[in-house]
């Protein structure tokens, strides 16, 4: 199974879960609007995942990565 098919199947299952949420709209404790927003968790997970990957791999990683153990030399002295 290729990667595209895997992505597609996850997207389809996600879409089905949203449909399930539409059919059975039971929200027990909507303290804020997003608790009652249909499909919010799916969108949040997707965008949040993109955001985290971007911040982590795109911003933080280039700042903190070093070629080798920078402490080694000073500890041998």
């Amino acid at each position: 199974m290729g990667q595209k098919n895997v992505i597609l199947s996850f997207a389809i299952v996600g879409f089905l879960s949203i449909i399930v949420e539409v059919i059975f709209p039971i929200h027990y404790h909507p303290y804020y609007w997003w608790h009652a927003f249909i499909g919010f968790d799916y969108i949040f997970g997707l965008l949040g995942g993109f955001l985290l990957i971007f911040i982590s791999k795109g911003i933080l990683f280039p700042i903190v990565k070093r070629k080798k153990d920078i402490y080694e030399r000073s500890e041998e002295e």
Partner: protein
Amino acid sequence: MILHPALIMLGAGIVIPFVPHLIRKIMLIVMPLIVLVASYNLQYGQQQSIGFINNIDLVYLKVDELSWIFVFILSIVSFTANLFSYNYSNRIEVAAQFLYVASSMGVVLAGDWITLLFFWELMAISSTFLVWAKKDETAKKAGIRYFLVHFFGGNLLLAGIFIKVSQGEYLINSLSQNMDIASIFILIGISINAAIYPLHAWLPDAYPKSTISGSVFMSCLTTKVAVYCLVRVFPGVPILIWGGVVMCLLGVLYAMFANDLRVILSYHIISQVGYMVAAVGLGSELALNGAVAHAFSHILYKSLLFMGAGTILYATGFSKLTDLGGLFKKIPGVVVLYFIGSLAISGFPYLNGFTSKAVILSAASVTKYPEVELLLYLASVGTLISTCLKVTYYSFLGEAKKSYDIKKVPINMYISMIITAVLCFVYGSFPNLLYNRLPFEMNYIPYTFDHVISTVQILLASTLAFLFFVEIMEPKEYFLLDTDWLYRKPLVFVTRKTSEVVVTIQENLGAVWGTGILSIVPFFNNPFRKLNVINSENETPEKYDPDHYRFSIGLAVTIAIMVFVGSFFYVRF
């Protein structure tokens, strides 16, 4: 008679290095079981104390709802982790494990500050030995750094406790309404153990360098005992909310690009403890229950994950994602058990992360912190991506990147992982087992239709996000900077420069002083020269025998004894 779990374990830990091999192996299994029974049988309200100096009573046993649940989970994990380490722990390591568990329980059961401090320091010392047990150069150095950081934290705690006790407050009480200097010292001391940013760097520095079983113990004890102390002493301190959120997110962000399995899991400890710290900061009864429940769940699934990672390291000799691959075909049992743990930490329904994380998130919305709720929710996306998906994709599936032989995994490792996985499932499916034992009454139902569908959606969406960027997420072998840079570079530099300045001053002063001394020496070396008994400068001072003019040493001793006896009787009577 009350059996004190910490004291039983402490006694066993002192005895165990000296007993023969066979008895040691039996003790390794039997003692944790005895402790488990002892801690289960503790009753709320039990208290024991012993007199100490200055009319202070050392309350070495005080049981309430909060301490009971922590002692219970600590004794469960003490059993599973000791079983895990059954076939290769040496004398010192076993003793360190026992003392580490004993001291953690001692902290949890302590009713006064002095007992707490004693066990706190014992916890730091015994866990350092678990790092050193690895016996290589990096572990030795990491152990020393670990010890220094904890010693620093312990001393801050000592300073705070010293002030508190000198004010006459020697019993442990909540200090959140009374944030004076002593409370701040205590808060920082505890925060170091709880790995709150930026005081966290000791954790990913030391844990991955410990032994396989050592890291299982460490992942469960130090930070969770600190969470216990925060719940007990600082509930509702607002700074902890944001401290927790920052831990939660930064831990996940680091874990997303870390390469070593145990480094990933170490950053995840920080992230998960972040949930608990934020919940302590929220301070409502629901939030505190959430913090305790999450600590309970976290100990289970994190020990399972560290056991899984340790077993992979044991079987293959590698723990980096850039070396591993295709493990599912080689050790499917271990992989499945690790996978259960990683689903539990991600909050998969019917596993225990789901039932405890939900309480914290609900508490955040009930206490009107919507932004905290969303940020914590965001961190759970990263948790799935980094502990579960990334590890699965790059080490369980695909092909091995380096060739290695698979060592046979001992049966006891499997048994302890299975027990832990079953417990994750039991507490996830029957959450009331845990909820009924939490410190505050609550009526919380995690398995609502709404809640389960939200979780399914967020897990699906996170997986999709990962699959979109699977090439970008590929792990790379790099060295990662963290806040320990501050005390490993600038602090070392400042210390070195300061000592250089001091040494220069000392040497120069010494030179002046030495010249002065040398210039007056000739006046003292032979008194007879001045008395003209020896006439010439060149004459050897053979005639002069200093012993001839000295009193015998017996006289000096006699005088000293007489003075001592005289002053002793004067002082005493």
